[in-house]
């Protein structure tokens, strides 16, 4: 099992930037900064307003690149999950966020911030099933292979 360090300063400052991005996207484009909704509009049939969506996604990918390549910041990354389970889990996440109309960014941050009942319910449910899944995987079946 991979232990990770408690990093409160990085968590609070990174979280503040995520919140800032959510506020800015609402201030300028009038949009919820939800990764699911923004991505879905880029898939066929592509939304008419695909420009800002593509720019946001491009920026979200470029951000960590800039951080590591241009500023030499070390971003810790470790994925303990076998490829087959990444594919299975990826499919499950795709189906879930599409029907659930959002993910951690859209429901968990933006929707909760405006006290949307749908987002509060969605966030409580996915935090619950994520916790249950991690418990089952790690403590009942002893990891994925």
């Amino acid at each position, binding site marked *: 099992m991979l232990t990770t360090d408690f990093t409160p300063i990085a968590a609070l400052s990174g*979280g503040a930037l995520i919140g800032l991005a959510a506020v800015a996207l609402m201030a300028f484009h009038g949009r919820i900064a939800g990764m699911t909704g923004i991505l879905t509009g880029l*898939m066929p049939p592509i939304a008419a307003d695909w420009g800002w969506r593509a720019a946001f996604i491009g920026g979200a990918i470029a951000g*960590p690149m800039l951080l590591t390549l241009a500023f030499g910041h070390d971003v810790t990354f470790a*994925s303990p999950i076998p490829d087959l389970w990444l594919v299975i889990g*990826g499919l499950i996440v795709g189906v879930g966020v599409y029907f659930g109309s959002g993910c*951690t960014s859209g429901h968990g941050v933006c929707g909760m911030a405006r006290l949307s009942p749908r987002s509060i319910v969605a966030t409580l449910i996915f935090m619950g099933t994520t916790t249950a899944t991690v418990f089952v995987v790690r403590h009942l079946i002893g990891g994925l292979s």
Partner: protein
Amino acid sequence: MKRILAAAAIGITFGIGIAISGMANPAKVLNFFDFAGTWDASLGLVMASALAVAAVGYRFLLKRPRPVFEAKFHLPGNRKLDLPLVAGSAVFGIGWGITGFCPGGAIPALGLGEPSAWIFVGAMLAGIAAARTVRFALQQRATQNT
């Protein structure tokens, strides 16, 4: 052009926030949910911090008549707590618990050049596309029957 550049700058801010916070690191995400094992509370602070900034920002912002580039704020109008919301969210959590990747964490992780992020995102896009095809087909059948 201005709205494209602004969206790119906001995306960069989001991506850097995700990377710094640890949300792009599946090991850290999974540990947040492992209360019975190697618990790492960090992501609770990420959510709390992002939520606090967004809540205060929205509070002032949404009193204004309109955003800078648009005629109105595009806020979701659906208020119903329906089956797709509940079931979809439950299913999403299962995938998040298996992989440690959520969409907002995985897209910035692509920029770290991590192969596992690319595998996950490819599968996730296929999942969204499949779900969308099913929903469109169901809607079409529903309209044909009426």
